């Protein structure tokens, strides 16, 4: 049996492979676990106790759309004022506002305005009127390849392209005769992975809250990847942050309904609310902000804070 020594090493190889695969899985799981823990830890030990010696902590809870931005602010602010630690957690705008009402949040992040009913509840609970701060804007641009002759699209058409039961699948349905370089008439949808803020915001404003995206879109892992993929694929359409445009893509004008003139997305049209796929991002405090919170909010609205807004793919405040 000359072959038998080899069978032995074969078994070893497989064991090694198995171990490698499972270690990869473990690393993935651990990585995810740790990340979440740091984000969610404040929920447990909020105001009372557990904070390390003398370090004042600010509880910042709310919108998932804003969680990356809030995290980026909190990390940077640790360098600005080391005496204060900002504890960020997500859950959604509603969760943040509920935390405001329950007095467990010092700042609530919300990607929508406080509803009158919620304001009443907050007043009843805290005895103060919540203060509202606009800290930036969320806006998504619609990108097509630079060779695409189309230059304007309506929200309905976008919805028909991306919605699960939407009927628009061909460029010719939109009146686009031929795209130079495109190998077929099919609209190639470029989207994001299903838990990104952009995905959720696009679903909310374009596809419809109660609807889902059509399967089969290319789901990219980052805002930049969407634009790059559209730039490399003549028949593609995609949505991404405003700041990601490259020479290979074209930003479409967007109109609310078909026939209306389209609006070019820009910092100006986001600010005056004429561009339909944009919204302000809010932070709420229970009453007038306390000294430490005020200092933090002032820093967020300063140039340094607003630079982070731009860097994380959102639209900064008007200067």
């Amino acid at each position, binding site marked *: 049996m*000359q*072959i*038998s*020594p*080899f*069978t032995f*090493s*074969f*078994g070893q*190889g*497989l*064991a090694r*492979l*198995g*171990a*490698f*695969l*499972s*270690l*990869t*899985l*473990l690393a*993935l*799981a651990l990585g*995810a*676990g740790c*990340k*979440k*823990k740091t984000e*969610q830890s404040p929920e447990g030990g909020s105001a009372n106790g557990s904070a390390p010696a003398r370090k004042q902590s600010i509880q910042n809870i709310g919108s998932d759309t804003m969680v990356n931005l809030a995290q980026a602010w909190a990390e940077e602010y640790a360098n600005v004022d080391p005496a204060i630690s900002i504890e960020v957690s*997500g*859950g959604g705008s509603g969760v943040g506002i509920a935390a405001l009402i329950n007095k467990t949040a010092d700042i609530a992040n919300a990607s929508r305005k406080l509803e009158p009913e919620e304001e009443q509840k907050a007043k009843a609970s805290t005895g103060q009127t919540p203060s509202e701060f606009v800290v930036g804007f969320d806006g998504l641009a619609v990108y097509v390849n630079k060779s695409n002759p189309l230059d304007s699209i309506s929200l309905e058409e976008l919805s028909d392209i991306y919605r699960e039961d939407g009927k628009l699948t061909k460029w010719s349905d939109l009146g686009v005769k031929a795209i130079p370089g*495109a*190998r*077929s008439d*099919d609209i*190639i949808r470029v989207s994001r*992975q*299903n*838990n*990104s803020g952009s*995905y*959720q915001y696009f*679903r909310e404003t374009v596809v419809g*809250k*109660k609807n*889902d995206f059509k*399967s*089969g*879109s*290319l*789901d*990219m*892992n980052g805002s930049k990847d969407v634009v*790059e993929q559209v730039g*490399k*694929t*003549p*028949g*593609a359409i995609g949505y991404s942050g405003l700041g990601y445009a490259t020479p290979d893509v074209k930003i479409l004008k967007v109109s609310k309904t078909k026939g209306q003139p389209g609006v070019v997305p820009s910092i100006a049209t986001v600010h005056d609310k004429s561009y339909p796929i944009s919204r302000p991002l809010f932070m709420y405090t229970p009453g007038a902000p306390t000294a430490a919170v005020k200092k933090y909010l002032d820093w967020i609205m300063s140039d340094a804070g607003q630079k982070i807004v731009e860097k994380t793919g959102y639209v900064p405040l008007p200067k």
Partner: protein
Amino acid sequence: MNLPPAPVAGTRPLSVSTGSPRGPRRSRAAVLGESVLEWVIRLCGISAILFVFGIFFFVLREGVGFLFGGLKLGEFFFSTEWYPTSLSNVRYGVLALIVGTFSVTGLAMLIAVPFGLGAAIFVSEFCSDRWREGLKILIELLAAIPSVVWGFIGISVMNPLIQEVFHVPVGLNVLNGALLLALMSVPIMVSIGEDALKAVPDSFREASLAMGATRWQTVRRVLLPAAKNGLLAAILLGVGRAVGETMAVLMATGHAVNIPKSPFDPVRTLTATIAAELGEASVGSPHYQVLFIIGILLFTITFAVNLVADLVVKGTAKG
């Protein structure tokens, strides 16, 4: 392993202490050191088993709650609708992801097996010594390229190339991922395949040549049958690599939930889904647990591949 057990102090009978048959007696420390070392090595061996079971246990623990409480298995295995974050109608169908994984792996093997085994045969049998050393270094270099780099090549080089050469609308597709996986698994196949061929004793070759067989006849009729277990191992390790690979396929296959109708359709694999979504799924949520169930599924698939491989090898070894 046949050493007598270390005698316990106090109970040692006199006859043993005096009856040292040949050579000087080993000191107590040396005997103790020997057995300690033996146990350390034994522990190293057992630890691989512990790790595999430990990892399986942890992955299972995270997913098992939802696996037996809430997950519709029929939908999980037979539906192509993957909407884990839908607001109106959450669906966890992974059929498209399973088909995606197998289509990319299958095509990759169709490309890699002839190339990998061919290269192994060339390096082992037909190559001059000088060439062999150079080739082996280059092939090992190919194995050392990180998978993110492969993914990057897939996006930036292969993506436009595939569109151009095959006149297809999307360059991120099954073929792109399969080509990358083929390139990644070829080095494994070559080095293990070459070892397998080298393990065939030279007397086989000499006998065959002495009988008047040409070199190719020797390879086909003598070496391949003699080394078939090792070559099979080489192929299966390549399959394992391809099924478990994450980053490159995440970037190169287009990441679209889609049952492919041709090699030019984008797909999404099981591994890529875990990588893209686990980071932002909140711990303990159904989405998070379903991703771990996908992990269990992957574990089961690789286990099945290994088991089948083992059985096949054992079966052919007998004959």
